């Protein structure tokens, strides 16, 4: 039996050590590594190099999102139909509570379209965050097995939510048309609105992915934070009507909320009765600033801990 003391006292016996080129014999390990271009294992690549690696994995990100979306409802009998059913049922529940029972609709024209737009757009951000929290901690097997830029995971999960949202958009457009809205040129604004929201969501998913990889309790806490955020974002009421008499500080606080901004933009583009007068000033600029700030900031924040994901 081997014991610690025996091992340490005997030490290792090197028999027939592997040959080295004669001119390498005098080099220290670090010098030898430098000579043959070896790098420290697990070191984090620079930001540009990282971005290049990530771009090289774009097909992986896309295929991963596609495969996961396809696999999402395989256990359910109705399968992919749930992609449309889930947002539809969500909208129905909120309409029942806030439209019929509480009657928030007073003062909002075309409340059904107003509410459904809010629910769908907020769900996009909400589900991106929820998927992002588990993007690293829920895929440790894959992360430990294969080497790829880890940012692929939160980005792929946000892409999945975008695919889900595009399904919801068909439902949304159908509902909006049924409630009497007429398609016009302003509908095209939905595309840039979704694009900036996607960048914002990706950044947010990257941030919570890093947080969630270290603090596993965050996944339990996140639904409560998100619900609070939802009630502040004017999903089922009109912020401009609510804040008409509110102090300016409250008004500004509610107006710069990015979720409220993206919801406002979509309502503005799809619903005729929502006019620019109801929207906060510089709403497009704010939408872009939020997207760039959170998108770029989240990317850098995630990259800073790249070497630590899947460790331990």
């Amino acid at each position, binding site marked *: 039996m081997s014991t610690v003391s025996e*091992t340490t006292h005997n030490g*290792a*016996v090197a*028999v027939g050590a592997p*040959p080295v080129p004669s001119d390498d014999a005098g080099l220290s390990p670090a010098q030898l590594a430098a000579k043959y271009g*070896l790098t420290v294992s697990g070191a984090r690549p620079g930001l540009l190099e990282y971005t290049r690696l990530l771009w090289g*994995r774009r*097909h992986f990100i896309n295929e991963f999102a596609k*495969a996961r979306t396809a696999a999402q409802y395989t256990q359910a009998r109705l399968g992919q139909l749930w992609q449309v059913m889930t947002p539809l049922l969500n909208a129905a529940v909120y309409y029942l509570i806030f439209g019929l029972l509480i009657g928030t609709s007073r003062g909002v024209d075309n409340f059904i379209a107003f509410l459904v737009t809010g629910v769908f757009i907020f769900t996009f951000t909400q589900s991106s965050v929820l998927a992002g929290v588990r993007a690293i901690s829920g895929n440790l097997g894959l992360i430990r097995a294969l*080497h790829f830029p880890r940012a692929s995971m939160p980005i792929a999960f946000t892409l999945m939510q975008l695919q889900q949202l595009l399904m919801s958009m068909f439902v949304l457009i159908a509902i909006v048309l049924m409630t009497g809205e007429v398609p016009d040129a302003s509908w095209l604004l939905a595309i840039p609105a979704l694009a900036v929201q996607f960048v914002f969501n990706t950044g947010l998913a990257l941030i919570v992915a890093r947080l969630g990889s270290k603090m596993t309790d965050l996944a339990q806490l996140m639904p409560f934070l998100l619900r609070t955020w939802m009630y502040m974002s004017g999903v089922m009421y009109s912020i401009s009507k609510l804040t008409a008499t509110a102090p300016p500080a409250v008004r500004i606080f509610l107006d710069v909320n990015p979720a409220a901004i993206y919801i406002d933009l979509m309502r503005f583009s799809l619903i005729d009765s929502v006019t620019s007068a109801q929207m906060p000033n510089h709403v497009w600029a704010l939408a872009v600033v939020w997207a760039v700030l959170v998108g770029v900031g989240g990317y850098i924040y995630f990259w800073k801990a790249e070497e630590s994901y899947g460790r331990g």
Partner: protein
Amino acid sequence: MAVAEQQPLPPLARPAESRVPTVIVDDVHIVYTVYGAGTGKGSATAALSRMLSKKRRSTNVRRVHAVRGVSFTAYRGEAVGIIGSNGSGKSTLLKAIAGLLPVESGKIYTDGQPSLLGVNAAMMNDLTGATNVVLGGLAMGMTREEIRARYKGIVDFSGINEKGDFISLPMRTYSSGMSARLRFSIAAAKNHDVLMIDEALATGDRAFQRRSEARIQELRKEAGTVFLVSHNNKSIRDTCDRVVWVEHGVMRMDGPTEEVLTAYEEHTGK
């Protein structure tokens, strides 16, 4: 600790052939920090009292010194076997080489990014085997064309379809041997500079083990380095020309397969 000081570099032996190092392990120490090891209570009250008494957390934190001053250099075209009893630090060492565990002190230099293939390297269990082949290949940086060209080869190599069309079933329906075979087949489809196999072949059947040994030989010819952790001395003899023997986190021996294995078998009393 004689080992650490003894060999920052192996002594000059056969200088004739010029060999290129691919992995340099330089006096590496690895220390695990295990949280919640002290009390053994996982209850809510225990967690709460842990949070409240955060100041004196030392009772809860245990440090495990898993690898103590290991140094060696592996060269291109080598197959290195790593042996030692359970818990001797073999897998920990491989994880550190793969960059999945931070080292406490010392340095590990590698040529490119080493790939570690372990028993627990789960892939995406809710997706089909076929999707896993494509996604695994893309994640390793292969192009779509490369994967299309090699797809049939990967599936044939894994032998998943020998007993029917299993590749189109979700991986959660696979037996442990089947998923281990598919994982190895995906990872071995790419030419790695450094491939490390941690007992991943143990679950495969005999025919698959023969195929994977042949593939390991091919990978070595393609100027890669292969590390193999195994408790099966026969498979080490068949595949490796050099063996590192680790015991209690210390390197006991490093040399040609036969010499080290003979000493190891004597030690374990076989």
